[in-house]
């Protein structure tokens, strides 16, 4: 394989803003590490409320990742493999949570699944209450994380193209067989990195969660909410927990990049 080698030099001054940008991202992370109360670190992150928040975060993020895969894969396939009127509009709407302030997402969910919400009243009749429950946490996280999965999977599907699927069909494979034995295995790397990104986004979810699910210890208080709360009373605990989330984020990025290359 030929290595890409630049023949034309880059302007030297370009390095200055680039370095400033990199520093801008890295410096706050260094600040956290510097501020961590190392002797008490373990005690701080293993306090009862911290552990409960961490466990809740992992559980709800895993659940919302599963939901993202179940809902997002069919969405991505339909967006990548079909064309219909208004497809552009549908795609924009699906991607809306990417740019929507999460707190707005939370309010929207509240007026959908809340007691007086669009579906909430019918659910109430059935005896189902969603708002301010762990289910609400999962829904809030799924709402903000779903676009990540759809975007990365749709990209993988488009890049891969349809040629293998055409061959599979002419070999006599019905659509479900083609989907199961050709489409899915070929986009598996894209699906995994999409799921990893969704998981990371769900783990960091704050605004929609606190609006739609509240902050009940052990029920809806995820790690980001715990950090926010601790900051008022015990700054050292907040910093220690922040570092835990930084480490998780770094691991997630490493995992996603590892799959991509």
């Amino acid at each position, binding site marked *: 394989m030929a290595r890409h080698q630049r023949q034309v030099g880059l302007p030297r001054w370009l390095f200055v803003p680039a370095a400033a940008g990199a520093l801008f991202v890295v410096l706050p992370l260094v600040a956290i590490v510097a501020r961590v109360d190392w002797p008490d670190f373990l005690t701080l992150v293993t306090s009862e409320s911290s552990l409960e928040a961490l466990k809740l975060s992992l559980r709800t993020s895993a659940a919302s990742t599963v939901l993202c895969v179940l809902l997002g894969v069919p969405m991505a396939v339909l967006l990548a493999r079909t064309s219909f009127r208004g497809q552009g509009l549908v795609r924009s709407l699906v991607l809306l949570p990417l740019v929507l302030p999460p707190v707005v997402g939370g309010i929207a969910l509240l007026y959908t699944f809340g007691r007086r919400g669009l579906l909430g009243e019918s659910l109430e009749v059935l005896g189902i209450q969603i708002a301010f429950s762990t289910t609400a946490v999962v829904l809030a996280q799924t709402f903000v994380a779903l676009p990540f999965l759809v975007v990365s999977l749709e990209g993988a599907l488009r890049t891969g193209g349809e040629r293998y699927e055409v061959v599979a069909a*002419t*070999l006599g494979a019905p659509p479900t067989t083609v989907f199961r034995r050709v489409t899915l295995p070929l986009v598996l790397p894209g699906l995994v990195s999409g799921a990893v990104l969704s998981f990371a986004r769900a783990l960091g979810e704050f605004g929609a969660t606190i609006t739609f699910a509240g902050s009940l210890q052990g029920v809806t208080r995820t790690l980001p909410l715990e950090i926010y709360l601790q900051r008022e009373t015990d700054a050292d605990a907040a910093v220690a927990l922040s570092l835990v989330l930084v480490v998780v984020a770094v691991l997630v990025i490493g995992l996603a990049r590892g799959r991509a290359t």
Partner: protein
Amino acid sequence: MSLALTAAVDERDLDLELEVGDGEVVALLGPNGAGKSTVLALVAGLLRPDRGRITLAGRTLTDVGAGHTRTFVAPHARRIALLAQDPLLFPHLDVTDNVAFGPRSRGRSRADAARTAATWLDRVGATELADRRPAQLSGGQAQRVAIARALAAEPDLLLLDEPMAALDVAVAPALRQMLKRVLSGQSALVVTHDVLDALLLADRVYVLDGGRVVETGPSRHVLAQPRSAFAARVAGLNLVAGRWREGSVHSSSGLRVAGLAVGEKPAEGAWVAAIFRPASVGVFREPPGGSPRNALPVTVTDLEPRGDLIRVHGVDLMADVTPQAVADLGLAPGDRVLFSVKATDVTVYTS
């Protein structure tokens, strides 16, 4: 397992009819954009015609007319396999699983499908590749496996889209021999640019141009006596079509070529075609005197080395001359020259 197709696709200006007999191998020849790949897409069910009907082995696969679709069988239910220029082996499956894909998709058991795969890998001479991944195969090996995979699906009709085009010149002959062997008794439609493919693999050829069939017949016949400019070009011959008047062919572009008619003398005004070899053509700046020669005004479009000779391309005609002659004449693209050919070197066929 015979195929009959009548189809029109307005967007691509295609309107044609063709047939493939039971066990017959038919080649589709034609310049780029002639509609060859469109025909394959129509037959495979990847494209819906505006009007038309396609039947295979008595089953109607496509029936579209008067603005609505009466029948359109999905690609996977047509029992038609497609082999493209690019082998397109599934990268996540090993060679055996690739070849077993068709039988498995038709509901055969894993063991049964693996046996079928082994049989076909043996027939294409690729048994030793059975456990490899597609990424570990050379282009020729991958195409062998792709052929085995297509045939293992036991199609009623096999479509081949320039199966040799992406291959090394060195491996193409062996693959062509193998293909000829495994295609015997198999109904197949082969799109090709290569006159050798058409001659060796196909019983019959259709020459397409501009979305129409311009010529059809047994391969040997069409290529030995081409009547369309494209068939002549793939056969490496010059062709001037026109009306027969006073012992000469008069083309619509104003060329006049005297020649010897084959068989019965054509009637005055009949449509005929004059054919001559590029090697029989001399190139001149001034009209040559002496013997009764045809002198055809040509604008040189390209000069191409071919072995010891240089092929001088005009718009429709070509001449093979020595490098010495090119140098003496100082030939360059854009020059207006005369192609000269003796009437005795020109064969005239009635269209």
